[in-house]
């Protein structure tokens, strides 16, 4: 605790670390959010980086940011605007200026605010604050680069390596501002650079010196304290959405007693799932980097045929390539989990930015009547729950399941209570040996469970159940190729009914908020945190409002229609041009009260915008 400094208690704060792609801003941000979580705060993070690996130094399009919101409680998203900006150069200041709150602190590196730096960021004058019209902020200039160098002059590191530590000096100052104990950061750095002790020492030195510098000269009038929360007892870790998705699949495979197989092809922002699973050979995971997206999914279909819990991971354009094979998985009724980490489109769009524009593709992007299960994860942690649930449905109902996540929740992280897998439901794959009641001799590959219409899984290597499957229409019982018109109609109906039946196995849709509200906010996927906060703020403003967030999209929960009919007004908010709203209208023809709120900017929703827009909608303006 610094002496003589005024400590101000606050509830929440949003901090953005911003600099060149090579400045280590993602690391500073991740460390700060992790140590805040360990300290006992709630966190939500938003890494926002350019598609270029290393854009020219100091340029506007090379700015990389990591935003973290921390609070005592009720942190549902990474925040609209920032209270504190760490700007490692003028470009970072310029790009982030529109997102600064009034009175916010801007910590900047004076060494990187020289004339040449201003020129690179296309400033016309030498006073960037004046030029950006930033009057209501507290600028704090610190010679971060030169102080980092003098801090590390005896470290034995080369100049380049020393400079790489300036992100830690900056982080040290932020830690001082927010009363973060350095011991946790030290430990995290020791783990991060375990194989390079010299780098650990240098980073810890820069971090400590940054902290001490802040303390010694009392950088601002006060420092801030955010009370640690009284969280549920247990063990915690922090996890981002992609890692959580990978973990969900591992957990499901363990529960089902199956080997996990992933066929995949690298694509932003889904690649981490492949990389995480490639590491998990200790769990016997087989994660294959195939030659293309098509081979990614088809190798998985082969593994599903052979008896694995099979999955494939991709993003929008990759899902487009997989669509023919998805039809094959629908037709052969094999279990398959397809993860689509949505990014901005169309085509290659904006690969590092997040959207919800693949819903139509997931629902309809195949030839023929081709029903399958579509789900969407709501948060980084929910990626775990959703991947587990998706695997359970795929294995028990013999169907492909598309799980939609998005770049925002895939890269964003939050603190996660390590689950006790004993509390999770069992997963019983629909194997023919365990589920078919008749004699093996009577069994045919397209016989089905009468109640669920699920066919049985006969896996190569099992005596007595040899059979042939394929993409051609087949006789509804024997599975032999058939182009009989009545048979096709019946098979089309059965495949649809099988998916519809899954509504009986998923939870009913819940509603949050006022029980007697007239207006229901509806959302799905990674916008959950923003919509929840919007709803709470509207209620703080005296509005009666309710909120339903859908994880299950196809089929919808059984009570969906009855629930939606209850409200006078439904506001469907999504980061597309109304795909879910149109889907709901298509499902329930009598819904004539849907208002759409759509933003397709590749950026997270802004709570303040939504509070304003929803208020107007509710008031009928």
């Amino acid at each position, binding site marked *: 605790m610094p002496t003589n400094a005024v400590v101000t208690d606050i509830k929440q704060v949003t901090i953005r670390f911003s600099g060149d792609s090579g400045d280590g801003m993602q690391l500073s941000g991740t460390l700060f959010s992790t140590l805040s979580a360990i300290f006992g705060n709630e966190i939500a993070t938003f890494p926002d980086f350019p598609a270029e690996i290393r854009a020219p130094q100091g340029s506007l399009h090379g700015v990389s940011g990591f935003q973290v919101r921390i609070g005592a409680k009720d942190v549902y998203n990474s925040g609209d605007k920032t209270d504190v900006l760490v700007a490692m150069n003028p470009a970072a200041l310029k790009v982030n200026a529109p997102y600064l709150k009034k009175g916010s602190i801007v910590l900047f590196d004076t060494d990187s605010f020289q004339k040449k730096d201003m020129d690179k960021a296309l400033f016309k004058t030498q006073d960037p604050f004046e030029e950006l019209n930033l009057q209501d902020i507290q600028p704090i200039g610190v010679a971060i680069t030169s102080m980092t160098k003098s801090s590390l002059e005896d470290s034995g590191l080369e100049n380049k390596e020393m400079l790489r530590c300036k992100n830690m000096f900056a982080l040290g100052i932020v830690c001082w501002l927010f009363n973060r104990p350095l011991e946790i950061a030290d430990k995290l750095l020791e783990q991060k650079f375990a194989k390079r002790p010299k780098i650990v020492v240098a980073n810890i030195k820069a971090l400590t010196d940054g902290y001490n510098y802040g303390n010694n000269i009392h950088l601002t009038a006060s420092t801030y304290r955010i009370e640690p929360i009284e969280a549920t007892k247990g063990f915690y870790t922090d996890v981002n959405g992609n890692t959580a998705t990978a973990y969900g699949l591992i957990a499901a495979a363990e529960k089902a007693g199956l080997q996990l197989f992933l066929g995949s092809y690298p694509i932003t922002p889904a690649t981490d799932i492949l990389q995480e699973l490639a590491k998990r050979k200790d769990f016997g995971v087989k994660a294959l980097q195939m*030659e293309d997206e098509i081979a990614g999914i088809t190798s998985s279909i*082969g593994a599903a*045929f052979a008896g694995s819990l099979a999955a494939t991971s991709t993003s929008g354009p990759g899902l487009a390539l997989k669509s023919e094979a998805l039809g094959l998985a629908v037709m052969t009724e094999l279990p398959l989990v397809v993860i689509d980490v949505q990014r901005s489109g169309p085509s290659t769009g904006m690969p590092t930015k997040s959207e919800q524009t693949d819903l139509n593709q997931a629902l309809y992007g195949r030839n023929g009547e081709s029903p399958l299960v579509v789900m969407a994860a709501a948060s980084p942690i929910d990626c775990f729950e959703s991947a587990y649930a998706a695997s359970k449905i795929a294995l028990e109902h013999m169907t492909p399941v598309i799980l939609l996540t998005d770049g925002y929740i895939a890269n964003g992280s939050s603190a996660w209570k390590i689950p006790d897998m004993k509390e999770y439901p069992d997963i019983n794959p629909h194997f023919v040996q365990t589920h078919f009641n008749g004699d093996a001799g009577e069994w045919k590959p397209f016989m089905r469970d009468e109640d669920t219409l699920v066919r049985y899984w006969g896996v*190569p290597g099992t005596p007595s159940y040899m059979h042939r499957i394929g993409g051609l229409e087949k006789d509804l019982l024997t599975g032999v190729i058939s182009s009989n018109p009545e048979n096709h109609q019946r098979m089309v109906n059965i495949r649809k009914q099988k998916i519809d039946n899954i509504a009986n196995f998923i939870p009913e849709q819940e509603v949050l908020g006022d029980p007697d509200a007239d207006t229901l906010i509806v959302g799905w996927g990674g916008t959950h945190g923003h919509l929840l906060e919007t709803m709470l703020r509207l209620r703080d403003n005296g509005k009666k409002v309710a909120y339903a967030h859908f994880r299950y999209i196809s089929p919808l929960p059984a009570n969906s229609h009855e629930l939606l009919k209850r409200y006078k007004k439904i506001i469907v908010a999504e980061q597309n041009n109304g795909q879910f709203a149109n889907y709901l209208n298509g499902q329930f023809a009598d819904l004539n009260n849907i208002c759409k709120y759509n933003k397709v900017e590749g950026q997270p929703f802004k709570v303040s915008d939504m509070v304003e827009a929803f208020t107007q909608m509710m008031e009928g303006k």
Partner: protein
Amino acid sequence: MEATEIKYQKYLAKDYKSENAVRWCPGCGDYAILTCLHKALAELNVDPHNTAVISGIGCSSRLPYYMNTYGFHSIHGRAAAIATGVKVANPALSVWVATGDGDSLAIGGNHFIHAVRRNVDINILLFNNKIYGLTKGQYSPTSSRGFVSKSSPYGTVEDPFHPAELCFGARGTFFARAIDVDMKTQVDVMVEAARHKGTSVVEVLQNCVIFNDGIHNKISDRNWKADNTITLRHGEKMLFGKENDKGLVLEGWNLKAVTIGEEGYTLEDVLVHDATSKDNTLQMKLALMDTTNELPVALGVIRSVEAPTYEKDYEQQIEEVQQKNPKRSFTDFLLSSSNVWEVK
């Protein structure tokens, strides 16, 4: 442990035959290939339930329906990738791919070369009739330049792939060739292919009676076959001809067909086939021999080289990692990972 009785079972060709009626055109070369596969599997004595036959789309790809094994008739060109998934998921299975020249060299070209490059232990039966049959008569990636077909009425203006060259280019470890009418060689190379550890490519020159009848006549017709083909056997002299009096010799960098006793050539000069040579230079030359260059078309096993297989190496990596890490539940794994803290 209770002693388990070991059952010896000898399978017959008919045990691999399914009850489905075969529906290829009468006279199609595919019938012979199917029969040969039944015979080869019987010779290998592999359990039908441990056999998986994967195919793409096309006439050739109907084959799994006619097998009393596990079978998967999938989508165009993807059989090699699906088979990779099957084999990696369960390396104990005997995995076969039935595919055509259009299926695996056009739409499936990418999967074909990468399966070969990875050396997954699958057996690819490549039915080559140099035509698209099921879509009714368009030229294929193996049709010769100038070939006239429904989609090339004035002749093609593109050069064909040679499957062997593609296979060698992908550093393939096994390549063999047979003709549909020569059942003995077919069975032999299929058995060799199955015994080979790694991706085996067996090109079967096959006749399409409807759209490309007689395309392989120069080598399949009994009047010309002996002089226009050579069946290579590892360790044996490269002899051919009706009287077995012709042989292959090296002249400079090139192969030359000679008659023993003429132009001063003796049996000593005739090359001995080495299918196991890692250097594929000569094997490539043999595979590309062509009657237009007055050389016999090579049949039999042209290349068979030992190399690590993908699925075995993958399993070995898993074993090694697991030996270093004690077996633990998923929850225990999370608890032991970095960044764990406790709230008391």
